[in-house]
């Protein structure tokens, strides 16, 4: 029981310690470090599930965990509510599942690279989980940097142009992180506190000052860069395209979602949306979202590199989340949160499929996928599910987030959002159905096998199973979306929306 009370901290602590020990273990045996990290990720997954049960059983809005029992606002605290435990579960689940997937890519590496990869991978999970559960603004900065630095590393590991992509991300990402730091500085100057709950009360007298507007703008740009919101997405297509194929699924699935969640948390739980500054900001966010959706989709249409197409599609999908936030009502909020979780699974699944194709054939051109349904049946089925979800065909999960977004748009009488959602679904249909057509209809492409398929399913089992699991998750999340909404999202609704 007492251990269960400490579960929030284990979400971060287990992967952190394992990552730090990983290289030492790898020195003993090449693969030992990876097992330690995987074990820790599994532990983190269990901790998030235990935390979620605890939070839901408690019935209160949130559970506070004080680090070293130092009381806030002086001490650092983790605040877990139903919403961020759900996000933490998503992160740890994907991290655990995809860690198996990475291994075949590293088969020929020495201990340093093998261990180093998993160190970075574990640290990335630490950063993401930490950002999600922390209740302290400066602590979030630390996790943001952990996430970014390990992310730069994993992207740079991809080889072939990845250095440049990582460097570019580093430059832009550092600007984002610095802006966040500046924002915190001003926030501290105004309120004298670094604790989110504390700030949310103390900030109220300042909400109409220019300084507050400056802070909010800093946060918007900082998180906008990290979540690759249009027009701050310039770094993202290259990074996703050239990142290490073993980690691309995880990077694309979670690394943009957690900043989105952080933004949502600041705007709805800390600053509150009912003041003039935030009202103006919501409009900006909405316009950014709409532009992102349309331009991201059109750019995706123009790509022939499968990974790059997915990257631009992410720009569009993040636009959905931004639009959901910008609606500023309950349905929009639910839609944004739901899409945040759903899209993580869809995009991971698709990136895993691409990675599998690249692993076996060294091919990423989406016009050379003919006959893949015979060679990689599981990947093809997962692709179909993910594609249906991207277009928004029920009962896959993508439909339900779109449903709530549409409800939100109607309720807010922002009909432009509905038009954009409809148009974007159709654009999605055009560029995703093309892939299904390639896989199932076109004549078999002449591809050279660079890796032995090993199994009948076309890939080593450690790659097939993650693809199958994420693909299936798309369907399961869709079918259980009502319980996700009523039991988790609606319990954790911010108070500003309930008034």
């Amino acid at each position, binding site marked *: 029981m007492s251990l269960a009370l400490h579960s929030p901290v284990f979400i971060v602590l287990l992967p952190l310690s394992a990552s730090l020990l990983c290289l030492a273990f790898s020195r003993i045996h090449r693969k030992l470090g990876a097992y330690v990290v995987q074990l820790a990720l599994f532990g983190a997954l269990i901790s998030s599930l235990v935390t979620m049960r605890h939070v839901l059983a408690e019935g209160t809005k949130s559970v506070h965990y004080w680090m070293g029992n130092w009381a806030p606002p002086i001490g650092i605290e983790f605040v877990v509510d139903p919403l961020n435990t759900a996000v933490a579960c998503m992160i740890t689940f994907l991290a655990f599942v995809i860690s198996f997937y990475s291994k075949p890519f590293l088969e020929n590496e020495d201990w340093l690279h093998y261990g180093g990869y998993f160190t970075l991978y574990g640290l990335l999970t630490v950063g993401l989980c930490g950002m999600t559960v922390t209740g302290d603004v400066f602590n979030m900065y630390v996790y943001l940097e952990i996430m970014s630095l390990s992310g730069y590393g994993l992207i740079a590991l991809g080889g072939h142009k990845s250095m440049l992509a990582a460097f570019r991300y580093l430059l832009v990402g550092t600007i984002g992180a610095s802006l966040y730091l500046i924002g915190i500085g001003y926030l501290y100057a105004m309120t004298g506190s670094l604790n989110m709950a504390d700030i949310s009360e103390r900030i109220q007298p300042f909400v109409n000052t220019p300084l507050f507007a400056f802070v909010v703008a800093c946060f918007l740009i900082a998180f906008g860069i990290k979540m690759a919101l249009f027009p701050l997405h310039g770094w993202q297509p290259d990074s996703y395209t050239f990142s290490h194929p073993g980690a691309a699924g995880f990077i694309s699935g979670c690394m943009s979602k957690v900043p989105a969640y952080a933004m949502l948390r600041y705007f709805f739980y800390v600053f509150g949306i009912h003041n003039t500054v935030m009202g103006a900001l919501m409009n900006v966010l909405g316009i950014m979202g709409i532009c992102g959706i349309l331009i991201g989709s059109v750019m995706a249409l123009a790509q022939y590199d499968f990974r790059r197409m997915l990257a631009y599609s992410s720009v569009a999908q993040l636009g959905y989340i931004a639009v959901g936030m910008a609606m500023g009502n309950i349905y929009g909020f639910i839609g944004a949160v739901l899409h945040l979780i759903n899209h993580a699974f869809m995009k991971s699944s698709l990136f895993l499929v691409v990675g599998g194709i690249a692993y076996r054939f060294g091919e990423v051109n989406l016009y050379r996928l003919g006959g893949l349904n015979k060679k990689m049946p599981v990947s093809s089925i997962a692709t179909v599910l993910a594609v249906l979800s991207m277009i928004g065909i029920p009962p896959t999960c993508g439909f*339900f987030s779109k449903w709530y977004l549409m409800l939100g748009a*109607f309720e807010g009488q922002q009909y432009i959002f509905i038009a954009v959602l409809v148009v974007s679904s*159709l654009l999605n249909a055009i560029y995703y*159905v093309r892939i299904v057509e390639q896989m*199932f*209809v076109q004549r078999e492409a002449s591809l050279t096998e660079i890796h032995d398929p090993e199994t009948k399913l076309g890939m080593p089992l450690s790659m097939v199973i993650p693809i199958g699991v994420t693909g299936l998750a798309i369907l399961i999340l869709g079918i259980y979306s009502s319980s996700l909404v009523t039991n988790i999202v609606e319990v954790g609704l911010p108070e500003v929306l309930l008034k």
Partner: protein
Amino acid sequence: MTEIDPRPFLAIGTAFLAALLVSVSHKYPNVREMWSTVASVIMFGLVISMAGGVLDGVTYEYTLFYLTDTIGLTMRVDPAGMIFAALAALLWMPINFYSIGYMRNNHEAMQTGYFAAFALCMGSTMGIAMASNLLTFFIFYEILTISSYPLVLHERDQEALLASRKYLAYTLVSGQLFLAGTVGVYCISGTMDFRAGGFLSLDMASPWVLQLLFVLMIMAGSVKAAVMPLHGWLPAAMVAPTPVSALLHAVAVVKTGAFAVLRVLGFVFGPKLLSQLGIADVLAWAAVITIIASSFIALRQDNLKRRLAFSTIGQLSYIVLGGALLTPLAFKGAYLHLVAHAVMKITLFMCAGCIIVRTHLHNISEMNGIGHKMPVTMGAFAVASLGIAGTPFIIGFISKWNLAMGAIQAGKPLFVAVWVASALLAMAYLMPVVRMAFFRPEPVNDPRRYGLISYCMLIPICFTAILAVLLGVNPELFPPDFYRLAEMASSAITAGWGGGWSD
């Protein structure tokens, strides 16, 4: 009276399970076809077992799980849904046997995918027929779109590719608009449950909002029902194998479109609100133009399947027009025509397929004298053609009679003229085929080679042709009793509202 009963979901599940079993047993063609045959019989049994109850006024309802906090994945079998469900289940059996014969005799590739997609289509059609709310309806509507897509794409060549893209473009666009309309309806009314007579009313929103929602929602049904100018996908989709065309035209896709139109007219907006909004007239005139224009286009087609396709476009608009007239008899006629057209058009398409398999002829101009060697096939073709033209004692007459009466009931006798004109046109584009088959000699200098007779294909044709006559002589015959079901559905929709008729 409402009873909680899982049978609707069992019927849908049977078809989906069959699809799964079919794809698993791709190595054994006989086992594979057995699954879909067994599933079609079980599904028919399940649906028919509910027919008696529905006729006694029982409504079967079941919620599998909740989609959102208030809206469930719910099935409810009312008379209108029963008509469509029974029709689809009844026709799946012959078309399944026919498919087996056609696919094997024509040596088609990808038969596993074909039968799996076919079963999925039937399952989702069941779902559409029995869905109790707009969201459930939409879900199965989209599943149908997706599962019929591989059927259109079956030939896997360039033409099929273009046709399938066109098909997807039309159906997905209209589906998304329907979704937007659905969201709007939910926001102004707070409910999504179909209710006979409609659940929207004038005090919920301003008239222009209601009119906009009506256009958004009716568009989806109209695309699948191929009302002009939204019909472009249907002739293109003729590249699919003939049983698929039969399925698309008679049972699944275009019929769900017509059914969707009737659901929106009768169960969402309701005749009362629509007559206040006055927007149903636009739909009625679109249907009239479609009926006349498509008949003229059909006259000029030499390819038999294309001629039948344009005939379908015209016939489907009968149903749409029936609904748009908003009177009790017109609704009854519309539901009856749903049945009548399905039985007749499936016969015609199966005949066309039979001709293709045995003689590889596609064009009507080359079909001189084939009736001498294929008397049963062409006989069935003649019966169904007469039915399409509305000859008494064949099922088409009964539905058209009711539709015409409905037009008079609405005080718009001009529409009767449309039906008469279209009947004559149907005679003009279908009877020449029969005449050429029976009364012209076979070409002497170019003797044709006939393939073997396949009883797997011939028996289903006879079955549906006889069905057309039997139902024409006595429409109350048969366990589902389509006539009374149609009457129940139309009187429920128009309860308390005579439609300009002062009773």
